[in-house]
């Protein structure tokens, strides 16, 4: 209980979402600093395509050997004041301990043309498979975007941290360099971060300046093999208290980075400091309960699978005190 003493009387947030997996590997060191002098931004209305990518995954059910999951990706872009999208999926997979490596390798081969011997990461463990497959699809769509767009803004969901199990450094480097060659700038927005300065989350340390602005950080070092391929900013792009961690390609000149953010302000709608294109990408790829029912219908009709409702052990054992398992 002593650990609570230092925070007594401080605001306490309920229902905080889980941190993204990637953030678990990032640690801010003593050298990490947030420069509180805001970099003011002025929207540049010069026409630029803004494109965003997001993917999602969901467990549809369980079989006696494994799980049935679905993955879907969405690419949304704004051009000539209109939003358009391409949605890929849902792709349904049956993952078992026996086939997980085969499935993952097959997908990696078909998406990135990597032979098995180049894949040092190996197949993920069974529980990580849904997010790893979604991550593969996301990187593939990002690759395609960086290869096909010219002089646009590409928005990623998450950070530009590489060297993690689902983001090999070379793969992210390739995406960024392809994008650069075609005059595109990659802006990566993280909805959550655990980067802290003096114990405070960086997105909470907002100076009293009128938005839109960026706050620069410096001195962030990651533990090998992780490599940060972007520079980290705090972006407060609209009024209100929302700010996000924004990673921008390291190889891009600082003034170009600022200009890219200003182009984003001039070309996309922003609500709560978050770009609409990215929000739409997230909305379009997310599975609704209705779609889960439809996919269950699909697997039972097409493959004759029987969906089994496992008893909820929490409820079974603890009755009204059992909170139940969550299926997101």
């Amino acid at each position, binding site marked *: 209980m002593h650990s609570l003493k230092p925070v007594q009387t401080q605001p306490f947030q309920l229902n905080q979402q889980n941190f993204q997996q990637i953030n678990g590997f990032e640690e801010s060191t003593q050298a990490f600093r947030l420069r509180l002098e805001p970099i003011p931004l002025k929207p540049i209305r010069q026409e630029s395509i803004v494109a965003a990518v997001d993917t999602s995954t969901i467990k549809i059910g369980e079989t006696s050997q494994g799980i049935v999951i679905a993955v879907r990706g969405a690419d949304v872009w704004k051009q000539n004041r209109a*939003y358009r999208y391409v*949605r890929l*999926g849902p*792709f349904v997979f049956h993952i078992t301990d026996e086939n997980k490596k085969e499935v993952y390798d097959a997908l990696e081969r078909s998406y990135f043309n990597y032979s098995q011997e180049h894949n040092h990461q190996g197949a993920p463990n069974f529980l990580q498979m849904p997010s790893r497959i979604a991550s593969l699809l996301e990187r593939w769509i990002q690759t395609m975007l960086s290869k096909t767009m010219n002089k646009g803004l590409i928005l990623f969901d998450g950070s530009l941290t590489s060297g993690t199990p689902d983001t090999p450094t070379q793969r992210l480097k390739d995406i960024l360099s392809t994008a650069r060659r075609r005059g595109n700038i990659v802006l990566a927005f993280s909805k959550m971060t655990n980067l802290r300065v003096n114990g405070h989350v960086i997105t909470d340390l907002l100076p009293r300046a009128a938005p839109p602005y960026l706050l620069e950080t410096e001195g962030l070092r990651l533990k090998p093999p992780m490599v940060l391929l972007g520079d980290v900013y705090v972006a407060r792009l609209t009024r209100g208290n929302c700010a996000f961690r924004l990673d921008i390609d390291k190889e891009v000149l600082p003034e170009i980075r600022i200009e890219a953010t200003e182009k984003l302000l001039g070309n996309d709608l922003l609500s709560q400091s978050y770009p609409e294109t990215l929000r739409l990408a997230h909305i379009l790829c997310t599975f609704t*309960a*209705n*779609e889960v029912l439809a996919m269950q219908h699909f697997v039972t009709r097409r493959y004759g699978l029987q969906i089994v409702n496992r008893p909820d052990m929490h409820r079974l054992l603890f009755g009204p005190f059992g909170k139940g398992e969550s299926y997101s």
Partner: protein
Amino acid sequence: MKLYKKEGNALQILSFPNETVEKGDYLLVEDAEAGRGLIVQVIDAQFASIPGVLEELLRSLPDGGELIQGEDVDPLEIAPHITYIQDASLLICKIRASIENENLSPTSSWLPSRSQSTIKKLPLPALLKLAKIDGKLPIVLGGTKDSSLLAIDASSLDGRLNIITGKKETGKSHLSKLLMVNLIGYKATVVVFDLNGEYLSLGMTGDGKRNAYYDKIHVLTPSQNFKLALKQLNLHVLLGILVHALHLPGTSAREFRRIWQALKERDALTLHELGETIRNWNCNQHVRDALFSRYHALVNSGFFTDNVAEATLLEDCLLKAKEEGSGIIINLRNTSAIDRQIVVEYVLGKLVDSLTGWKLKAVFLFAEEAHLYLRETYWDDIVTRMRHFGIFTTFITNQPDTIRENIYRQADNIFLFNFTNEHDLDVVSRAARVDAETVRSIARDLPPHHCLVLGRVVRDFPMVAKVKALDVKTMGETRLFFKDSN
């Protein structure tokens, strides 16, 4: 289809897009293991409460209300499954009967298995057969949605109180004509109080030729071809007119009785003599004034005559009708409110007379907008006393609240056309032979000329039929100012 829920006598059934079921359809819920089934009727179809549908709809409209354009690459073709789930509907049904070994019973106490029951559409012909809605005297009302004919038995109108109601121009008069000509065809005597002259050409085809009923239709227009001589009247019929239609007080009525007796003894029952006698009668001045004012009302109506040759005997028409069946149309068009009441009072009194004396077996009376000529006390009379004499009434109205609640309660059959007004639906839903939800839900969506039939004629299985066309000359059309310019 899947059984979802049962509450009271309502059943909720989950239906999928490939199963086309609509309001008014009948379903058979069969529990093979129990060897029993339920016959239910769909009274409403709603969207099934599918989780996530709101999110689905919202995300398709994020761009200021405009549909976001895009392409879905769906190699596994899951989208049709999403639509399939999203378009699932929940059918709200009412249990009409349970069935066991082809025998129907009106109970709904039994609960079929949710997991094992099969649900299928019950075609109307099959239901008509099960419910034994046939008979020797069929009247084809029209076609049902599944292209079969809905025929009721004329005997199910016999001795019954019927109501035909619906908003304007939905086909009420058309149905009443259909019932009438069929009853006449079965040699029944039909009397119509025709307020708008709609039934005058019932004996003519649409193109003005005589039809099969021409000789059986007798149109009586008061003060034209329908007049009475005092000599032909019974005192109590005339007293009925004076007291009920012309509101003659009791004291004056007693004095009138004495005057009548005196005239009768002198064999001087004429209008002229009646007027003179009232003038010279030794009685209170107020009584004389009261009698004089009613006398003038009788004279001014033009309904009474001293020329016996000119007088038409309703009784004669009724007697002719007794043998071969006929329709006697009392044309009340262009008749003032007072004169209308005089005529109606006379006709009803005469009918009761003829029926009491067994000169007639029974009469089917069709009364359009009866509140415009029927006195207060006759409503109860018609549904109780007169029914026992053999007057079987069909009320036709587009203002359901003009018919008393007790009439709805006692109505044996209701032919209901479209109503959208909540108040009107409220009134009709008080009928004892059907639940309010059925009336409200089905009647609201009835297209023109479609009729929801309730009551004994359909053995309490509410059915919707499109009333068949009738080749009779249309009368009673509304006069229009812009008719030619359209």
